């Protein structure tokens, strides 16, 4: 038992990788074997992520060195810096991995039935599991170069999955645009890593963080990393790939892509708080994040209001929701060097951002699955073609209401709590900040009222009289995320105390992150 627990970080990556490479073999034994393999691998990955989170909660940061004599031997033979591939899992990484694994499981359950009409499913499953591995790798790696490698794995798999319906020109175009931006973004990350390696002879995050002194190279690396990661999570004005890619990917994939974009946001958290922390010096990056957050919120939501394609509408809401997290992150970063202000509202802003990230991944994943269910049952994503489906698809309608209420920040749902934390803490910086956030929230509600009214309410349309509720597996995927949303809503103190607060504290405790690797190994 102890041996298994020690290797959980490696297992978390090995499972989806094994799943990906063996998917064509499973497919050789028929679609049932492939589906069992697909769901089993994602379920096991979620279990391992849960086990890892429990381990981190119980005993603090978990470090795992690949190929070392002992898995925790970070500095062999008296070396000053780690040289091997390093996984470092603190409360923030563990939360991200758990959250991502749940989204992957929900997307897999949904895809089992929603994709059965299509061919090429061996490749689909392989790419899906590869994307899961890339996302989890970004979240638990302890070194910058491997962050880049996992980012690339995730990007390549994403491009393949966005263009999965390659007979649709829109899908191929969306994939091409995403590939173009991802390649440039990844190149920027690689250049930043090269700067660090040239300056400090290491790519371990802890090693770089412990020696970092802000010079021209570090500033250039910061600009590259912030720009690339902000693009990857869909920040205005670099958000335009988001509606294209999210709308064209199969719904189960979009659910996972939401979690993958949050892995990029996690990277931004890691760079700002762990790598640079108080060494950031000026407030330029903090204000840049706040401004990009405000722009993302408002532009994202106003674009969403006018959409009639349900998936594009939800994709623009993704842009808008990322804005809340950037606002919370920016406020916390702004006062990071001031312990008094940090205690007064900075820590709350950071907790709000982390909590919103968790909430967003769950309810947005659910919303995309609902959009997929509508397209599956009614054969259209165009809201003009839908109507009166609440009678034909009552369970999907109920799941949509839960997710829509959560994203709109209606009490007593979880979205309200995280937004409240962000409103109140950002008010301390400037009263205009929460005003923009609240206007965004109102427009979000308006937008989802529109979806509910046009898709689920109103008189039945003649073309939709044969529509039936979606199959059980698809409802199962949606229900999994709905249950998480309800748990986060009904037990907010437990959610914040168990998941959010430790994650935010881990981000602020740079010394602990560095010490876990450079503190002497065994």
């Amino acid at each position, binding site marked *: 038992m102890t041996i298994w627990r020690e290797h959980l970080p490696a297992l978390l990556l090995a499972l989806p990788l094994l799943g990906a490479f063996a998917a064509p073999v499973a497919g050789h034994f028929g679609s049932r074997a492939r589906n069992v393999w697909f769901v089993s691998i994602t379920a096991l990955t979620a279990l391992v992520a849960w086990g890892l989170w429990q381990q981190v909660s119980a005993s603090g940061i978990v470090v795992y060195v690949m190929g070392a004599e002992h898995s925790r031997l970070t500095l062999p033979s008296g070396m000053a810096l780690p040289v091997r591939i390093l996984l470092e899992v603190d409360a923030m990484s563990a939360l991200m991995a758990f959250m991502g694994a749940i989204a992957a499981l929900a997307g897999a359950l949904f895809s089992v039935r929603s994709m059965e009409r299509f061919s090429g499913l061996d490749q689909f499953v392989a790419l899906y599991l590869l994307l899961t591995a890339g996302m989890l790798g970004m979240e638990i790696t302890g070194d910058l170069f491997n962050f880049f490698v996992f980012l690339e794995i995730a990007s390549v798999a994403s491009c393949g999955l966005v263009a999965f319906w390659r007979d649709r020109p829109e899908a191929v175009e969306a994939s*091409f*645009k995403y590939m*173009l*931006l991802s390649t*440039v*973004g990844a190149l*920027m990350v690689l250049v930043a890593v090269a700067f660090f390696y040239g300056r400090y002879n290491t790519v371990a995050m802890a090693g770089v963080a412990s020696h970092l002194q802000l010079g*021209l190279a570090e*500033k*250039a690396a*910061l*600009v590259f990393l*912030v*720009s690339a990661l*902000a*693009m990857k999570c869909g920040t205005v*004005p*670099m958000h*335009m790939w988001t509606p294209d890619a999210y709308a064209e990917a199969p719904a189960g994939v979009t659910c996972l892509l939401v979690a993958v974009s949050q892995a990029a946001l996690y990277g931004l958290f890691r760079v700002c708080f762990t790598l640079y922390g108080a060494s950031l010096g*000026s407030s*330029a*990056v903090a*204000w*840049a994040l706040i401004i*990009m957050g405000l722009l993302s919120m408002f532009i994202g939501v*106003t*674009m969403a*209001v*006018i959409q*009639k394609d349900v998936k594009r509408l939800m994709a623009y809401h993704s842009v808008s929701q990322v804005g809340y997290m950037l606002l919370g992150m920016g406020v916390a970063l702004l006062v990071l060097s001031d312990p008094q202000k940090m205690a*007064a*509202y900075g820590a*709350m802003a950071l907790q709000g951002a982390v909590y919103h990230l968790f909430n967003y991944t769950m309810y947005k994943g659910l919303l995309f699955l609902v959009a997929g269910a509508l397209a599956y049952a009614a054969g259209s994503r*165009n*809201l*003009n073609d*839908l*109507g009166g489906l609440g009678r034909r698809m009552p369970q999907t309608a109920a799941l949509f209401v839960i997710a829509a209420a959560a994203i709109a920040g209606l*009490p*007593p749902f979880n979205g309200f*709590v995280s937004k*409240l*934390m962000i409103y*109140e*803490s950002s008010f301390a910086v400037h009263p205009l900040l929460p005003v923009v956030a609240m206007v965004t929230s109102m427009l979000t509600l*308006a937008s989802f009222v*529109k*979806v509910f*009214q*046009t898709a689920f309410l*109103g*008189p039945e*349309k*003649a073309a939709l009289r044969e529509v039936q509720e979606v199959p059980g597996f698809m409802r199962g995927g949606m229900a999994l995320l709905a249950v998480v949303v309800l748990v986060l809503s*009904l*037990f*907010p*103190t*437990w959610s*914040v105390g168990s998941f959010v607060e430790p994650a935010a504290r881990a981000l602020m405790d740079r010394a602990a992150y560095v010490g876990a690797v450079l503190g002497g190994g065994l």
Partner: protein
Amino acid sequence: MWSLIDTGFGFWDVYAWIAFFLLAGGGFFYLRSQGRKDYRRGTDQDDIFYGGNPVPEDGEEITVPASSAYWGFTRALEGWYKGLTAWHSGMATEYLGYMVLVMGLLALAVVR
């Protein structure tokens, strides 16, 4: 485990809200129970009043399409939307351009 979340400026108590919704729900059902007793489902009492005209068979003919929703809002912000939709051109080169622009602005702010 079930106590309040203190935000530093206020607090959040989900159970107070649930109690409120239960009370409001109770009030709603009480008022509903006071309504007309002669209502019968499935009779002509259920018929939609459509300005005195016969109700069309297909619901499509009597619904407001999604593209017309919030017409007043979008009309009032016509200038904003004109600029915003033109900005979302779908050109990949522009997507890259905005990335370079952000990088340049951030570099100016950070390196200065």
